[in-house]
């Protein structure tokens, strides 16, 4: 790689530039905290951190500013894999290595490392979880499912939906009584999820399970069920199964309280720390140990598993991030 030469930076301290897509969701805060924690472990690293507030153009501007500051490395959490490409190439031209987190840049080896959770798998496992719970209830995979999608046009929203929809279609082939009664975009917005779910509950009195694009959607769904007096504890035949994705503090709390069945947890804290570790390694010339792409593991957290040693080992980032 042509730009690798710049690693011969003689400085004894390196500035790392971080651009996260947004801070409007705990997940990205976990990511920022993870990077900060990682940087703190390495005395030779300093951090400039920015948030793009969800706007691709803002992110491009901020990264350009970071490049002009001659940072030693960039950790990017792109809003969009394609729109980040020009500025990543710009960084490459200036010899600045790029590390991507959670979402990559759609230009292959323009990034040293791309660390992400497998969103398609998350969606798929969500569908599987629902199937499993329904099977427990009815003896066979049947029932009425609601899909509260995430924000359209975001990678997380779209890929999870893709994974969920594909797996549901597969399940439906074998289990014709498994029905998708409604699919609505709740935009990762708890209040929107609340309003949609309230209306769906009024329209359907036989909803068995809700798949949520993320934990905020799930919070809205849970509250709507409570308001509509349709809550029944887990195990009750009238219980509405709630599964979502992320593992925020609020989701962990809801699982512990038995309001929610499970969340497919990611871990932005450990994932981000790992990214910083790769940056550190790279800046010290150790490139061999850095994979080009890596899926960071995720873990299904339910009432049974949430306080298990395995969960502890995986890391309950939601609990840690607010501390």
């Amino acid at each position, binding site marked *: 790689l042509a730009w690798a030469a710049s690693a011969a930076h003689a400085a004894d301290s390196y500035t790392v530039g971080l651009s996260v897509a947004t*801070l*409007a*969701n*705990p997940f990205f*805060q976990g990511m920022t905290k993870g990077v900060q924690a990682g940087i703190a472990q390495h005395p030779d690293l300093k951090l400039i951190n920015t948030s793009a507030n969800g706007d691709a153009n803002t992110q491009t501007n901020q990264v350009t500013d970071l490049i002009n500051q001659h940072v030693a490395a960039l950790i990017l959490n792109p809003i969009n894999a394609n729109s980040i490409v020009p500025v990543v190439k710009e960084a490459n031209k200036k010899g600045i290595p790029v590390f991507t987190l959670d979402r990559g840049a759609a230009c292959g080896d323009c990034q040293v490392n791309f660390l992400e959770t497998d969103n398609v798998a998350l969606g798929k496992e969500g569908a599987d979880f629902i199937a499993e719970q329904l099977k427990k209830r009815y003896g066979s995979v049947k029932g009425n499912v609601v899909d509260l*999608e995430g924000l*359209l046009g975001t990678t997380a929203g779209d890929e999870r939906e893709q994974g969920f929809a594909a797996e549901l279609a597969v399940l439906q082939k074998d289990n014709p009584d498994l029905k998708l009664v*409604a*699919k*609505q*975009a709740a935009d990762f*917005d*708890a*209040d929107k999820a*609340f*309003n*949609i779910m*309230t*209306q*769906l*509950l*009024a*329209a*359907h009195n036989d909803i068995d399970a809700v798949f949520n694009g993320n934990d*905020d959607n799930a*919070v*809205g769904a849970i*509250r709507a069920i*409570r*308001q*509509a*007096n349709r809550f029944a504890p887990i195990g009750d035949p009238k219980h509405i199964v709630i599964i979502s994705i992320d593992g*925020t*503090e*609020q989701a962990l*709390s809801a699982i512990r309280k038995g309001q929610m069945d499970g969340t497919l947890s990611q871990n932005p804290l450990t994932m981000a720390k790992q990214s910083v570790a790769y940056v550190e390694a790279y800046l010290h010339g150790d490139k061999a140990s850095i994979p080009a792409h890596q899926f960071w593991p995720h873990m299904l957290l339910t009432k049974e598993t949430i306080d298990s040693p395995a969960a502890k080992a995986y890391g309950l980032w939601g609990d840690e*991030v*607010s501390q």
Partner: protein
Amino acid sequence: MASGQTSPAPKRNFGLSSVTRAINELTIVVGFVAISVYLAITTPSFLTSANLLSILLASSLIGIVAVGETFVIVTGGIDLSVGSVVAFTGVMAGLALNAHIPVPIAVLLGVGIGALSGGFIAFAVTTLNMAPFIVSLAVLAMARGLAFIVTNGNTIFSFPDAFDNIGGGNIGPFPVAALIAAAVFLIAGLVLARTVFGAEVYAVGGNRDAARLAGIPVTRTLAIVYIISGALAGLGGVVLAGRLDSAQPIAAVGLELNAIAAVVIGGASLFGGKGSILGTLLGVLIIGLINNGLTLKNVQPFWVQFIQGAVIFGAVLIDSLNQKRRGG
């Protein structure tokens, strides 16, 4: 000077203004009824009491906020800050609750901070003579920023039930939030239509200079109007936090535009002097109906925004065609 002179006999337009107004609201009512009938016929679950209550519940937050916005718009102003203020007051009330402050005080805190933020806008608009659009745009950004700063971006959650019931409880079959919204509409409707203060609000919006020379306390009226809007946004923040048992700094983004749309669909003019709480109620319910219809009919999410835009357009179009037909 013959004193027996009479003015020409009033012909057919005695009380024309109120008739005109009624027709105006009639159009919205007709639109409202048309949408309802369509949904009732095409969607079996529409006319269930559970569904109708769910529309009221879904409309309660935007309704509370739109009432405050109505006061502001009738004076010819605008308050873009309400969405951010909902978020900021929600997290402040949430932080207070998490610090074990009693529920009533936390509620008052939320409403009070909203009122303060409205007071800030009022000060800038009246004393500093700044344009409401830009002041409230600045407060939109500042309140949102503060919401992130005080929470460090975190979600605040797990509140006492007494608090959650404000947004998420029921009294009999009725959602508490909808009852609160109903009370807000009723009181605001009476205040705007029946009181001296209401008349002053209209006068200030109709012609500020003339109102001032007529002895109306323009500055005070404007100030109160923005404080009402802020306080109701604060109440909205409390209701939302209670409903979700959590408060997020990112909540209610863009709520202001929906609230303004509701007020305008309800017949208010952004130039001031025109508008009513009843109109706003209809505007809010029309938006609620449409969202409900889109959900019930399981319309593809991609289409939702487009249809909402088209409906706003249609509602205002009908209103303006009506005005044209009447030769307004």
